[in-house]
């Protein structure tokens, strides 16, 4: 028997039991859809981390005022151990470090006219622009003078600029923070979402001295960002920073660090590993549902071949060979599963798009994962359809004909 009649017979059998076919296909749709959605969400996270890593540069180091071993018990004492003087000392004494900037952050409301926007204000130094690789779309960055005089100036992230100023240029306008006027001296270019789905453009930069004194009234800093002279020098830089800070913090030999120096590369690759593990895990969980869908097909095909024993007998009596019957039911199972595959691909795409849209979670549809999911849905049809089809084809013609 050639291909067209096989398909005709299969489609007719499927259409004869619409509800049953629909429910069977649904199992595959959910399976394929889940695989595609889960993998694309995992992939999305991975790609975001990769992008982040590129934009951050491979030589960025983060210094935080708590020991990693004690990070779970984030004590209040920990936060005051890192100061702007530490940062200045690093800049002066660590030869493997080329740029370093303090960082201190607080959440606050920024007002312009009758518009207001709640965001993070980050106090940073002049090196911050280079370390974090920020670009300006207009205006200028802070200089030493701004730091020294605690200038009431600020630089707006794209999100803040858009929300307060719309399309007009904020440079040289005045905004209010805590009722204090600040002059906008620059606007940052867009960076987009971070790997954790945060909007990196939703921030306001100010000189760190300004944030410490004028806004928060503190003397410590929350973080220091440094860049080593080269990617290879980052380990050397970590060592230099560690020994300098230990010395400055008067730590005895048996005392643990009260700070941590983390390399951005190692940090990002940890996240990347995690997100990879997540992709695999999510994908495997979703694959289980695909297999469950396959078992559904097998179940229905077994019922179907039993119900149609008489039909099989008739076909055999007029000359259908074992192969013809085998292919007839195999085609039926495969048609069911590929319909499920096609609908499942669409469902999966819609699902991952809506997860990233409504859940603001990055997702990336990877064509290979779609192709693999579709391919597997067909394989599942063949695999789970084979046993019932073979069982049907092995029937004895006369027994099949007598079946009522």
């Amino acid at each position, binding site marked *: *028997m*050639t291909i067209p*009649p096989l398909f005709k017979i299969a489609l007719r059998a499927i259409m*004869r039991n619409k509800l049953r076919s629909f429910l069977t296909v649904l199992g595959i749709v959910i399976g394929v859809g889940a695989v595609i959605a889960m993998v694309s969400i995992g992939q999305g996270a991975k790609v975001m981390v990769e992008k982040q890593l590129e934009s951050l540069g491979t030589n960025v180091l983060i210094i935080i005022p708590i020991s990693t071993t004690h990070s779970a018990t984030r004590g209040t004492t920990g936060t005051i151990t890192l100061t702007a003087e530490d940062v200045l000392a690093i800049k002066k004494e660590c030869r493997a470090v080329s740029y370093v900037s303090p960082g201190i952050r607080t959440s606050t409301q920024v007002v312009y006219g009758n518009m207001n926007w709640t965001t993070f204000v980050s106090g940073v130094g002049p090196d911050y622009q280079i370390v974090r690789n920020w670009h300006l779309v207009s205006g200028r960055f802070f200089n030493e003078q701004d730091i020294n005089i605690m200038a009431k100036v600020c630089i707006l992230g794209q999100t803040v600029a858009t929300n307060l100023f719309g399309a007009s240029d904020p440079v040289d306008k005045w905004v209010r923070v805590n009722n204090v006027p600040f002059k906008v001296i620059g606007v940052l270019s867009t960076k987009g979402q971070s790997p954790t789905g945060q909007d990196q453009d939703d921030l306001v930069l100010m000189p760190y001295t300004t944030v410490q004194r004028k806004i928060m009234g503190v003397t410590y800093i929350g973080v220091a960002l440094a860049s080593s002279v080269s990617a290879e020098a980052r380990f050397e830089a970590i060592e230099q920073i560690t020994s300098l800070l230990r010395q400055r913090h008067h730590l005895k030999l048996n005392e643990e660090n009260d700070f941590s120096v983390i390399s951005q590369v190692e940090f990002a690759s940890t996240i990347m590993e995690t997100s990879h593990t997540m992709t695999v895990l999510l994908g495997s969980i979703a694959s289980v549902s695909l297999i469950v869908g396959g078992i559904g097909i097998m179940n229905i095909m077994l019922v179907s071949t039993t119900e149609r024993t*008489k*039909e099989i*007998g*008739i*076909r*055999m*009596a*007029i*000359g*259908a*060979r*074992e*192969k*013809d019957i085998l292919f007839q039911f195999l085609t039926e199972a495969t048609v069911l599963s590929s319909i499920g595959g096609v609908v499942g691909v669409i469902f999966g795409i819609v699902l991952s798009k809506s997860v990233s849209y409504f859940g603001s979670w990055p997702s990336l549809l990877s064509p290979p994962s779609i192709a693999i999911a579709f391919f597997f849905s067909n394989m599942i049809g063949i695999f789970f359809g084979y046993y019932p089809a073979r069982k049907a084809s092995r029937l*004895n*013609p*006369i027994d099949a*004909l007598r079946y009522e």
Partner: protein
Amino acid sequence: MQNIVLLETVYKIYTMGEVDVTALNGISLTIKKGEFVAVMGASGSGKSTLMNILGCLDSPTRGKYYLEGIEASQLSKNELANIRNKKIGFVFQSFNLLSRTTVLENIELPLIYNKRISKIDTDRVHQIMKILGLEEFQKHYTNQLSGGQQQRVAIARAIINNPTLLLADEPTGNLDSVTSMEVMNVFCDLNNKMGITIVLVTHENDIAKYARRFIVLKDGKVLSDTPSQSTASDISQIPCETIS
């Protein structure tokens, strides 16, 4: 004349748990080309069992069956399927048509399973439908037809591949007497005009008299095997339709 069927001491024994049922008890038989044979006998005498073996639907427990000189009892399942497709037409008491499938599709079905045919010969299909008066029903579903019409579809399907042997197991068993006569006229014509060899099982003498040879079975053995004396005159009384 050429032997179409040659049976040599054929046994069919069914094992039902502990008990063996001997359905065919050493039957030897030859049927020549163009014969019209009626098989009769009491219920349970082994008629259907014999037909199933002749039709290659079942194989004998012992003994040999030659169909056109080929030993069918030696063939593989695939080869048997091929024989059923090309050399044998089988008409059942209960029609055995595919339901919710059109008349046309039922008739074409053996052609689909015929490896030698790449394209369905629609002329032949229409000619066969015309012979059996089915043209107007070709788009009807078989479950919407009367018993007589259904049996005519079954006959059309049986002869579409131009078989050497047409087997019919009580083809009129589910039909009233008028429809039975119609169907028998068809068989009679197929034998007379197209020279198809026919073996037909029946309980009724009225039906059997269309044949030209009578085989009576009893307990799985041939009780009598007689040519019909009155056949010629009987047949001449029957208004056979002309076959184009």
